[in-house]
């Protein structure tokens, strides 16, 4: 299940599909397709370029939308995207299977060391940001929580809202599962990178299920990606440190980066991005690429 090679598409099948599509294009109308390819990257006319992206499930959706938009304007380049997790993506990059690894975390020291051993460096480009919102039941009067309080709540220490400045109400904390990207950001920001934690409370298999648990129970608290917010749950402001100012996840605070529970999402390449990969990353970072990110519930980088 977690073997790095799992997500590799069969090259033969992909290639034949691609050539069939190209043949079709060529037969239909050489004019516009040829002209555009010539304007974009002339060297890619004879041999179609192919970019393989793999990694973070958090980035998967956005990367797929980017790939589609890019392919619409660069029909000579086919971009394939598979998920599997950040670690799987970087492993594939090290082995030379992926062209770009999608990662929701910076590459680790062990991964960089392995890259050096193979004669290159892992170069990360932040391409977008993602935010996590802490939510409570709408009837809960608590409006803000500090990072320290979140840490105590999600390690299972806090049993009652009184302990974090709320009413006398049993506290039920719900966290996302082990492989969830949302859970990873939350753990990283609240507990710190490389720290264990966040598994002292009930794990729920899915953001929608977590939303329902919080919407149904007065004492519940959990966290969600931006896209899952509804009026049935209420976001609370988060203070980066105890006693510091609490920042609510308003659009303005999210865009300026004042809201603490955000993290960059990365494209990793073997060395500086080159050729088709560099062109694709330029597209992703362009105003059009960044607009696509905001339209799909991510924050610009």
């Amino acid at each position, binding site marked *: 299940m977690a073997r790095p090679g799992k997500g590799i598409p069969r090259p033969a099948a992909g290639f034949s599909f691609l050539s069939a599509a190209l043949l079709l294009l060529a037969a239909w109308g050489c004019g516009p397709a040829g002209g555009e390819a010539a304007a974009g990257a002339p060297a890619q006319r004879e041999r179609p370029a192919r970019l393989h992206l793999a990694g973070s499930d958090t980035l998967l959706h956005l990367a797929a939308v980017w790939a589609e938009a890019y392919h619409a304007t660069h029909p000579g380049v086919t971009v394939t995207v598979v998920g599997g*997790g950040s670690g799987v993506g970087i492993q594939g990059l090290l082995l030379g299977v992926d062209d770009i690894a999608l990662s929701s975390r910076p590459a680790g020291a062990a991964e960089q060391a392995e890259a050096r051993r193979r004669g290159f460096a892992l170069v990360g480009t932040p391409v977008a940001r993602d935010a996590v919102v802490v939510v409570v039941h709408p009837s809960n009067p608590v409006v803000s929580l500090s990072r320290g309080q979140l840490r105590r709540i999600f390690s299972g220490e806090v049993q009652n809202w009184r302990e974090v400045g709320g009413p006398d109400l049993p506290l*039920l904390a719900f966290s996302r599962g082990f*492989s969830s990207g949302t859970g990873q950001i939350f753990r990283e920001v609240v507990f710190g990178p490389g720290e264990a*934690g966040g598994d*002292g409370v*009930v794990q729920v*298999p899915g953001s929608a299920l977590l939303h329902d648990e919080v919407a149904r129970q007065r004492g519940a608290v959990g966290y969600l990606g931006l896209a899952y917010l509804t009026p049935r749950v209420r976001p609370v402001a988060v203070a980066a440190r105890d006693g510091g100012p609490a920042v609510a996840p308003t659009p303005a605070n999210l865009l300026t980066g004042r809201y603490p529970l955000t993290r960059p999402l990365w494209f990793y390449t073997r060395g500086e991005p080159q050729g088709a990969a560099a062109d694709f990353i330029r597209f992703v970072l362009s105003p059009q690429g960044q607009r696509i990110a905001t339209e799909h519930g991510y924050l610009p980088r």
Partner: protein
Amino acid sequence: MVRSPVPSRRTRPGPPPPGGPGAAWPPPGPPPLRGEPPPGRWPDRCILLAGLLAPAILAAVVLFVLLQAGSGGWAGLWGREWQPLGDRPRFGALPLLAGTGAVTALALAVTVPAGIGAALWLVALAPPVPGRALAALLRLMAAVPSVVWGLAGRGIVGPLVQDLAGARYPQSALAAGLTLALMLLPTFTLLAADSLRSVPSPLVEAALALGATRWETLTRVVLPWAAPGVVGAALLALGRGMGETMAMVMVAGSVPSLPPSLLEPVETVTAAIAWEMGEALAGQPHYQALYRLALGLLVASLALSAAAARLRRAVAVRG
């Protein structure tokens, strides 16, 4: 189900005699099921091949899990802390084993008495129409997919346990155990009823003729006679319960710590594997720990299946 299909096949009107009008049909004695197929008969060879396929696949699965589990450092598995995250991960499986143990024990504590009662009623006491209705209902329940039971556990059993038993969360060992009991009950009841039905009627008639009441006949003659089969059914239920994954992910709560009470959330071995395998890189300690747990589950369920089959066959043969 427990009886050999051979006798009934012989009583059924068969196809026209293959050897012409003079040949005897049905052939005398049971048809040969064991031994080498005669050479040159392709259907038989195909059947032999299909028969070999199952053990071959089983051997391949065991070998694969064994290889992935790696060697060395098995002692760490007996720790009290399951903490796969962070820079200092720990893979002590006791909390997970305790979770599986608590949930399965609870489920069997409900399923076995309730199932035996239902099976006795089905076999000995039920009027024909309600009895057939219950049997049909149980067969339907047995066909419900486990994710649907998980949803029912999450939506109905969990909140009920929370409200009535005073559990903090809707996810708890008790909720998971009761949900699992609902899942195991139909199959266990049907298998137990099967064993009870195989009690020879002369035994029952003799007991009644000697003046035993219906209750005495059931408890002193029928149940003891069928006991190995019922125990076999319980072992099958135990193996099935240990292996249940989806409902445990949804109802048990997945908190990998030794539970102070049955009202607290727990994590089962299967749920841990389901949650974490996607993030465990091949060959790493976490990956190996998960495969070791899988190996344990595999060995346990194979042993339980074998024991159950042996017990149930004993009853069938005596019948």
